[in-house]
């Protein structure tokens, strides 16, 4: 599980563009393209600057009217998945 204090940001090897309200992320080192859903796109767009998992969850809860516990679980899952494929990275 990703710790709440972990600060993450876009990975330098990822190139992204939002088309039709979906973030498309090209993982240049893996040669793969990732397409995010609406909430994933919203989260992705928060990560242009480094942000802690805790802050990200608070923003998500406020924006989508979720409980903080639910938002934290969703963000930890999202961050964990994107860290695993180097779409995002921990702040150096």
């Amino acid at each position, binding site marked *: 599980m990703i710790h709440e204090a972990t600060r993450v940001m876009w990975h*330098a*090897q*990822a*190139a*992204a*563009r939002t*088309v*039709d*309200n*979906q973030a*498309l992320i*090209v993982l*240049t080192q893996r*040669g*793969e*393209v990732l*397409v995010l859903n609406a909430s994933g796109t919203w989260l992705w767009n928060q990560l242009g600057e480094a942000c802690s998992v805790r802050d990200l969850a608070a923003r998500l809860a406020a924006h989508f009217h979720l409980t903080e516990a639910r938002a934290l679980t969703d963000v930890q899952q999202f961050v964990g998945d994107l860290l695993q494929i180097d779409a995002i990275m921990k702040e150096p």
Partner: protein
Amino acid sequence: MNAVLNLRIGATQLALEGERLPATMLDDMQRRYAAFVDGASSASTAMRITMSVRPGAPWLPLRTDAPLPLRTQRCGSCVTCVTPTEAGFFDLTQRRGRVVLRPHGNVENCLRVLVGWDAAQRGGLLLHASGVVRAAGAFVFFGPSGAGKSTVARLSAQWPVLSDDLVLIECTPTGYQACGVPFRGNEWTAPRLNLWAPLAGLLALEQAPRHARLPLPQGAAVARLVACTPFVTTCPQGAAMVMHAAAAMTAVAPVVRLQFRKDEHFWEVL
């Protein structure tokens, strides 16, 4: 004075100059690329590329059980391309470059990379696709390896087939044009035609038990186009350029999913 081979591939003009090349190499290239030879490529816009052969160890390890390793990077206006038997450097702004070949190297591996980058700079895409020209224009069928590009080309042999592997889509003042490219690797497959035609359809290939033409949302269409654009998406700058080009292209030329089984009746749903 060294011999020069002038080529035009889509809107990319190339002036290939041999520097102490084996006598047969330019002749072989002249024959191989005959349909793309262009007397006007000595113009100032042509990319001047010096080619030479230098014996030595492979630049990258070559494995017989894996696809050809190819590394491409961009730094400023320069693109580099390295395979086991070729090392290329191209300055896309200064319009000059150099390719050093090992004795069994093939300059085509670097030219494909160069044409892909050059097209992307103009808002075009060099796609893994087959292309067929009909009265309405060019239909471009793209997809990953095994999706059916060669099958589509083989089943459409009564019309001009641009390619069964790579098709160049150029962004021109009069709209998008599909163009043939001469690249064929080391094996003969479909003919490569030096032909331009207005883009009539972009079709994302999917094998299926029956033929069907299905809509594809723009976001998914861009993702699929990007995934089928080789060479340029290996670095963030190139990937961003390709996504921009694909988004602009799909705004005016929507992509449809073509589900097809391997027979010529797929044309009936287009």
